[in-house]
């Protein structure tokens, strides 16, 4: 689901999510029993409208893992890049079916289980970010911060800017 940006707060090593009465649907059991295949091949799935509230805090620790794409196959699990830290999370939740037939509340923790957080790029951003990272050194990256003010345009004629996917020479002659 899409949530307001303000629902997620990132500060230092922590990321928190605070959501109240978010509409969701619940299939109630997984895996559901597979019914005999109907003639049209479509399995009915009963979805129950509900609302959920929760607060979760993710906390990263240790050193980051630098991740670079290991495959060009778009269906591969390793066709992405980023910088990820091990992370734990814990939180509380409450859930209520909108018809009032069921509600529950509780808490959870990832202690001892796998979790991670960090930054990543996938899909169309893989090629352009990985290419920029490999072809543009720190100097070029800092040059990319140059803005196109009138004064900046004069400077641009003497510097390299990142424009689009590849560094290009900009001339104001």
């Amino acid at each position, binding site marked *: 689901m*899409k949530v307001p940006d303000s629902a997620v707060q990132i500060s230092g090593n922590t990321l928190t999510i605070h959501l109240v009465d978010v509409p969701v649907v619940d299939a109630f*059991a997984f895996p559901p029993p597979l019914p005999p295949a109907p003639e049209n091949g479509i399995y009915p799935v009963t979805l129950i409208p509900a609302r959920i509230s929760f607060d979760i805090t993710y906390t990263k620790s240790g050193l980051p893992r630098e991740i670079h794409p290991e495959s060009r196959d778009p269906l591969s699990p390793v*066709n992405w890049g980023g910088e990820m830290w091990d992370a734990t999370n814990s939180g509380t939740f409450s859930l209520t079916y909108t018809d009032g037939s069921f509600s*529950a509340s509780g808490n959870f923790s990832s202690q001892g289980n*796998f979790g991670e957080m960090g930054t990543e790029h996938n899909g169309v951003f893989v090629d352009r970010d990985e290419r920029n990272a490999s072809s543009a050194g720190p100097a070029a990256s800092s040059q990319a911060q140059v803005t196109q003010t009138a004064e900046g345009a004069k400077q641009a004629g003497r510097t390299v800017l990142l424009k689009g996917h590849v560094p290009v020479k900009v001339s104001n002659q």
Partner: protein
Amino acid sequence: MSVFPLRLSLLVLFFLFALVIPLQAQIDPIPNLAVQPIPIPGGDILPPYGLFNQFLPGPPNQTPPFDPMNADPHGITNFRGVTAMGYTFGAATDNHGNPYGVITDIRVYQGEYVGGEVADVNSAGATKSAPSRGTFVEI
């Protein structure tokens, strides 16, 4: 699992797999969102249900096995930003006082993405690529 009555044990996966993964793509259509995020094209094939557009990264040598630890934790493709995920265990009580075990896999994504928007309002809704940004939670 053994600490819970069988009937309740069947509900243990309530949050992770039932409420979270309604047996279609993990990124379902989002009403009234102009630029729809696109599910990752890959994912885990779980017989007999089919393809779930989501990987389950985790440590090696587990039973049942996870995907490689460096498997993409994201559910949305064409995304650049912050990602957080983690598997949890917990406990809950319903409105009748019944205890439940809880397993969650709640993932959050915040950043820019290239999704799909309507290319022509006079069409059936055919898409074109469009940049946008947002915050998404998979619960």
